[in-house]
């Protein structure tokens, strides 16, 4: 593993190398260098399987994080690669030429986060949300509760109690 990281450090602008959960090594790379890096990992280092492609919305820092986890089946090891992209007109290079099933991940991310992957097959077709006409629902500035209340006829009478307040009132009503 150390050899691979040293090799990657020489060839690509990687930073923030650290250990994630279960000993998986995570590293960040500039968005423009991601596809060459994944190609190199697949061709030279045996990381031939894309396990997951997921997105995180860092609203305060005004950027999206994309996480690619690749797996080496012979060494039974995972490697996580993070990419940060701008939140406005978010666009990322598609990796469907390396892994065909990445197109499905990308289609879902396009729908849920609004990150575009130009050239990815069927990326503009609806995946789960048919006829959706609002903000992409997984963005953090989309108010799920407000949308649900406006759209889906909430049944009156639902109350949520803060457990601490509720038990305090129940057990010590005088205080």
């Amino acid at each position, binding site marked *: 593993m150390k050899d691979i990281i040293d090799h990657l450090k020489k060839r690509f602008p990687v930073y923030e190398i650290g250990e994630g959960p279960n000993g998986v090594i995570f590293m960040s790379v500039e968005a423009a260098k991601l596809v060459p890096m994944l190609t190199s990992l697949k061709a030279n280092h045996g990381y031939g399987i894309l396990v997951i492609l997921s997105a995180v919305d860092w609203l305060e820092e005004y950027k999206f994080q994309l996480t690619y986890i690749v797996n080496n089946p012979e060494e039974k090891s995972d490697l996580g690669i993070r990419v940060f992209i701008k939140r406005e007109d978010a666009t990322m290079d598609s990796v469907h030429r390396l892994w065909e099933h990445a197109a499905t991940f990308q289609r879902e991310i396009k729908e849920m986060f609004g990150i575009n992957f130009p050239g990815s097959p069927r990326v503009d077709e609806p995946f*789960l949300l048919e006829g959706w006409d609002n903000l992409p629902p997984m963005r953090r500035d989309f108010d799920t509760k407000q*949308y649900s*209340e406006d759209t889906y*006829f909430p049944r009156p009478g639902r109350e949520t109690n803060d457990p601490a307040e509720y038990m305090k009132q129940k057990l010590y009503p005088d205080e």
Partner: protein
Amino acid sequence: MSDKQQNQEDKFLAPENRKHTVIGPEGEEIHVDPLNDYFCQDLPKVEAPYKGVLEKFLNWARSESLWVLAYGTGCGSIELPPLFSPRFDAYRFGVMMRPTPRQSGVLIISGYLAVKTLKRVIRSYEQMQNPKYVIALGSCTINGGMYWDSYNTINRLDHYLPVDVYIAGCMPRPEAILSGFNKLKERIKSGNAEGANEYVENLEWYRTNQKKVIKDWNMPPYNW
């Protein structure tokens, strides 16, 4: 209907359902409007119940043979198969599963309903023949349950379909579902289970609610 409105509705239509021209065997042009030509455009009518002993007899007969559409939405579809196993044996109550909407009289909404599923449920419900009944399982169909603030899951089923019996729980055990079937039987025998007629009478209200959430409505006026 104005052209603009027409275009708006065409946007969601499948390509084979849009207006198109077919060349016949002798070279003649045939204009096809699939929604009008292939689907019935009539709306359903209220079927008034018979009076007196005859209706009582019919209701008894209906209540003793409940044929359920074998269709599951959400987690409740896992609770249904044990119902037909020897341990619970719903068949002794006259309850059996049928594979198509045309053959069945009871639609069980088993759990949360995403908007995408709701569209299929409406299609199935409207294809069923009268008299038809709806049983709603779980708290998700009552007030949204744990998906009450979800962006894609409806909260109250009774705004989209007429519900006869609600069975509370998350999820209800097979015993609770059997009890729900017995409640439905009582309701049918007392002559109160007129959900199908209620749906026809208030079709406009139901349609407004349905179209509010199903934004890519591309179905005929009524799915016969």
